[in-house]
């Protein structure tokens, strides 16, 4: 009997077209754009200057505080600029631009493909390596991993849950990683488990990935503290709060961190990055992403260097036509439910980018919004048991207090409400805005 979370959720068609395409190495771009804002929290502070020579893996920016992460050069070459550049959203961010020459790595990095099983580091050393490698949550939110692994006063972690749900339609990067690097993921998980103390390890995987479940079970058999939990296919299963509910049956209270329920959730991609950082000394300078669309010729999985411009992936995948026009209407950075639309194709992918999704106008164009018919489908779909129809109206009217009374801050922006609204109302657009205001107010207090 597979498990799942208890409230709301939707069942979009999973469209994992690229699931059988092995991970390909993406060519090193001529120029990378490394944004200082690749994680939640304070932007990193550059420590290189225009004209500096850097090697692959060299530190180029230091964290600006505890909730922040360092950034490393993903290519070797010359720093050609440190200035404000528009990112893929068209917003201006401080960016380090490196012109590539060759592929010259730091000597300390072990580049062999041999799997290193033996764990020699103490938990303190592992923790230090994780925070120095600039590892962030690769499930999408990009929250610095070392912060999550830091114990909080009065809260004891009992479980480490590796998130292999990949509930977003289209994306297959986590799936491919589990298939091709399952052992490394488990070693990475084991490393984080040791940091947290003697906790139990659980890997949650959705049922639509039977091969991954089978393989991970086989690998987990070599470890004492690990088990694989199959989950029903349902969105947003991979949400942190939903995953904890699905696996442990515990609900995270408002304004509390997930660890208050005794669970720490990490993406399987993060576990792989932790393995590389601790066992191979390799900082987070590359990741796996899915470039996919409903066109069978554009369905790939790539292992890429961070900072590669979005356009390069589209060119490599053969997305533009002969005359340079794109027959797709929208490029999404991330999954179709929570990813962000790319406004600037010259903007670069980041550490936590898990997919580039090409959608046609027919697939993605929003319909003309109608009138709310009070069908309450949004309420039924909301995994946080909010009343999106009400929050939407309150947000339009700007009623901040009423919004907080109805727990707008609990919104996880999963998009289930907007997805299911038959009147095509832009529910989440307004609720997200109201939520951000509410959270800002809360922080001030």
């Amino acid at each position, binding site marked *: 009997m597979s498990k799942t979370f208890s409230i709301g959720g939707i069942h979009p068609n999973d469209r994992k077209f690229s699931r059988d395409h092995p991970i390909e190495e993406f060519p090193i771009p001529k120029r990378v754009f490394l944004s200082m804002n690749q994680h939640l929290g304070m932007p990193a502070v550059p420590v290189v200057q225009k004209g500096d020579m850097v090697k692959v893996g060299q530190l180029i920016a230091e964290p600006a505080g505890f909730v922040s992460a360092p950034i490393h050069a993903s290519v070797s070459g010359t720093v050609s600029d440190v200035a404000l550049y*528009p990112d893929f*959203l*068209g*917003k*201006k961010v401080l960016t380090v631009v490196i012109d590539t020459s060759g592929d010259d790595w730091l000597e300390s990095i072990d580049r062999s493909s041999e799997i290193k099983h033996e764990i020699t580091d103490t938990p303190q050393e592992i923790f230090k390596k994780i925070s120095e490698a600039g590892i962030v949550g690769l499930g999408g939110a990009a929250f610095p991993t070392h912060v999550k692994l830091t114990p909080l006063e009065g809260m004891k972690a009992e479980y480490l849950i590796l998130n292999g749900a990949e509930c977003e339609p289209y994306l297959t990067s986590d799936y491919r990683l589990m298939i091709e690097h399952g052992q490394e993921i488990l070693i990475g998980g084991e490393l984080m488990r040791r940091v947290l103390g003697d906790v139990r390890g659980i890997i949650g995987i959705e049922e639509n990935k039977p091969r991954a479940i089978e393989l991970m079970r086989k690998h987990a058999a070599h470890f004492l503290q690990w088990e694989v939990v199959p989950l029903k296919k349902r969105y947003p299963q991979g949400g942190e709060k939903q995953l904890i509910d699905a696996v442990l049956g515990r609900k995270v209270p408002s304004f509390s961190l997930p660890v208050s329920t005794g669970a720490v959730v990490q993406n399987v991609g993060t576990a792989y990055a932790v393995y590389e950082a601790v066992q191979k000394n390799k900082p987070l300078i590359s990741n796996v992403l899915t470039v996919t669309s409903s066109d069978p010729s554009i369905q790939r999985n790539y292992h890429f260097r961070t900072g590669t411009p979005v356009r390069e992936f589209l060119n490599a995948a053969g997305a533009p036509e002969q005359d340079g026009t794109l027959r797709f209407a929208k490029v999404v950075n991330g999954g179709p439910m929570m990813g*962000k*639309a790319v*406004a*600037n194709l010259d903007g670069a992918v980041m550490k936590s980018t898990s997919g580039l999704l090409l959608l046609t106008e027919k697939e*993605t*164009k*929003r319909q003309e919004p109608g009138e709310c018919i009070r069908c309450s489908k949004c309420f039924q779909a909301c995994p946080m048991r909010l009343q999106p129809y009400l929050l939407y109206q309150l947000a339009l009217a700007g009623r901040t207090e009423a919004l907080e009374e109805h727990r707008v801050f609990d919104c996880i922006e999963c998009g289930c409400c907007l997805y299911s609204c038959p009147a095509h109302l*832009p529910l989440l*657009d*307004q609720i*997200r*805005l109201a939520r*951000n205001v509410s959270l800002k107010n809360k922080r001030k207090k």
Partner: protein
Amino acid sequence: MTSTLLYTILSLSLLGGLLAVVLYLIAQKFKVQEDPRIDQVLEALPGANCGGCGYAGCRAFAESYVNNPEMTDFFCPVGGNDVMKNVAMVLGREVKEQVPRLAVLRCNGSCDVRPRLNVYDGSMSCAVAADLYGGETGCSYGCLGLGDCVTACTFDAIHMNPQTCLPEISEDTCTSCGACVKACPRNILELRPKGPKNRRIYIACASKDKGAVTRKVCTVGCIGCQKCVKECPFEAISFADNLAYIDPSKCRLCRKCTAVCPTGCILEINFPPKKSSD
């Protein structure tokens, strides 16, 4: 038959009388003593409840005005000096006169000078779009053109111009309440003095990008060349973050700056056309 009628009339009258007494007693008990001058002040106010004065509606303004005699910075932007004189008369106070103002848009990037790079398909709200990304054009400071200011205006003074894709503010109906200024997520609306004979000069750009970047995305943006700063004889133009700004309190409307601006982003409003000999 008669008795039924009689009983009905009697019982209903009795009930009515009883309830009237109860109502009277309750009204007496919960009577709120209020300064009658508040109502007089309220009478003198325009009653638009726009919140432009900083209070939640005209009544809140009136209450505060009556109850805080030591405070002097009360001003109703909608009513202007005339209304404030009437209000002050009720309490026999002085008015600090203010110059009439109106909202101006510090962006002149209409559709043809600022090409669209992508198409926005979300909720028709500037706040949502600004939260999401850099905007439809390359300029991440300029007007988003989705009309949050139009919605915010309670005086029907702002309308989108479909030709320019920019909002237009009507001089006659704008009351300088400032609702649009608060609504604009890009902070490009500003309340400026209407000026003598409604003449005024301002820089219609808010871009803090470097000149080269601004020039690439918009032909009428401020490129930070500082020619106007040097030209101004009254030191009314300040310069910061690649952007010049004209201080309306120092500007004497000499129009020297408009002549030197290479992109024409300094707008002069309601001036007679310059003589060709100039």
